[in-house]
């Protein structure tokens, strides 16, 4: 009866190992392509505006999920973002100590959505709600259109 066996180490259980090798090649999508291109080429964030409800979304997207119409109007965000919330991370996703790393959810005035990214600050205590921040970008020649083209956000 397995329930009565006193196995304290999982590896003591009779087992074998196997793996399912899966690798994914994603497309950015119609709107995602535009967003990535703007980030790569000009180091700016592209947003989309709904012609019906007038909501502006970041990142740019193909359709307004509320009005369910295609969004054709895009604009780049010129203003700094602001800190909506923040945290300090002390372990990475495999559980190993790394950090402290300060992470923020950055939003933009009048825009729906946001970007989670690292904050380039000396210490946790120097971050505050509403603090204006701007991205620190890689050199244009090194950018690929990925979110990692941004090294971190820093106080504006």
């Amino acid at each position: 009866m397995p329930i009565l066996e006193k196995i304290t180490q999982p590896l003591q259980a009779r087992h074998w190992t196997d793996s399912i090798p899966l690798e994914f090649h994603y497309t950015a999508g119609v709107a995602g392509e535009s967003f990535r291109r703007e980030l790569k080429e000009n180091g700016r964030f592209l947003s989309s505006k709904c012609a019906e409800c007038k909501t502006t979304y970041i990142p740019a997207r193909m359709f307004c999920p509320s009005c369910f119409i295609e969004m054709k109007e895009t604009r780049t965000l010129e203003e700094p973002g602001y800190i909506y919330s923040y945290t300090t991370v002390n372990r990475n996703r495999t559980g190993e100590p790394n950090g402290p790393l300060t992470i923020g959810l950055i939003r933009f005035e009048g825009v729906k959505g946001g970007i989670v990214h690292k904050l380039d600050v000396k210490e946790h205590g120097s971050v505050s709600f509403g603090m204006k921040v701007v991205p620190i970008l890689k050199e244009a020649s090194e950018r690929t259109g990925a979110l990692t083209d941004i090294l971190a956000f820093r106080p504006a």
Partner: protein
Amino acid sequence: MKRRVAIVGAGITLFRRRMLETPKELSFEASKMALDSAGLTLKDIQSVVSGSAPDAFDGVHMKGEYYLDGMGAIGKPHERVYVGGGTGVFTPIGGWWNVASGLYDTCLCVAEEKMSPLHPHPQYAFWSIFDQILERPLGTTLLWIFSLEMRRYMHKYGIKEEEIAEVAVKNKGNAVDHPSAQLGAKITVDDVMRSEPICEPVKRLDVSPPSDGAAAVILASEKVAKKLTDQPVWLDGVGWTLDSTHWTNRDLAYPEYVEKAAKMAYKMAGIKNPRKEIDVAEPYDPFDYKELHHLEGLQLAGKGEAPKMTVDGVTQRDGDLPVCPSGGLLGVGNPIAAAGMMKICEIFWQLRGEAGKRQVKKDARTGLAQAWGDLMQVGTVAVMRS
């Protein structure tokens, strides 16, 4: 007391090996087309049912939660249904529960699949569906069991590969007229016979391709449907059953699970003699022999008789029982769940006389769509009437 349910709109994207659109964007394109065709906006939709096969294709866990923005499902009652390859026809069955039960008067049903992200090939997603003790150690693939099934079917009834190849010729030819089609082509039986034997007797042109795509329909209660359109297509019978994953137990020459699902749908729709009463059919055809197999399970052909019907031209668009006038999975493509929904869309357009160049010659009033899948164990069937 269940209520009568109608389909009032349909939409579909292109089916392609690799689409730029994300799963959300594909879903939006199909959903928006369906809404526009019904003269509705998202505000008119009370619930959403979605269908998609394994998360491992799109490469997003909780795919149902991920793509729902593209189905207008934010803040609405939404559920994702799943029975592998049978999902496309199961999705409007899920919608039927929503409307027939009286819970909602309108339901948007969307099926999406983006198979291209998975590398080196979408088939890798199936490695883990086989039995851990008996099958996985051998490196089993789905093609093994399809080939065993095709050969057993041929053996039992004395069917020739050339007769089976006629299905691929017909469906790929029909798909030339489908605007979404990935593999429409005028080919010959000889082309099929000379194509690469992948897993004998299955050859390259016996098989449908992996695809990206989405398709959608809108269901409405009788009261709402009659206000919206003069041409509602009634979803009068639905059926679904599953067999065990122990596929080694099954009669490989006959899909009993399809028969059970079909009989459930026929009983609900009041169909006594399917061969006489069904005017047009879209059975699931991921392989050419499967169309024949399924026609028999659906009681639209006697056991072992579907190949002759095909060779005799009965299943052509101008035949007595047009089968896969869309071009099927073999021609239009096979984005798993979206492929089954494509069949629902096709019957909807056929029964409304809106299929354009694909319109069947006979005056079709009653049609059927069927899908099949999981570990070749599920049958899902929908009977529709104009």
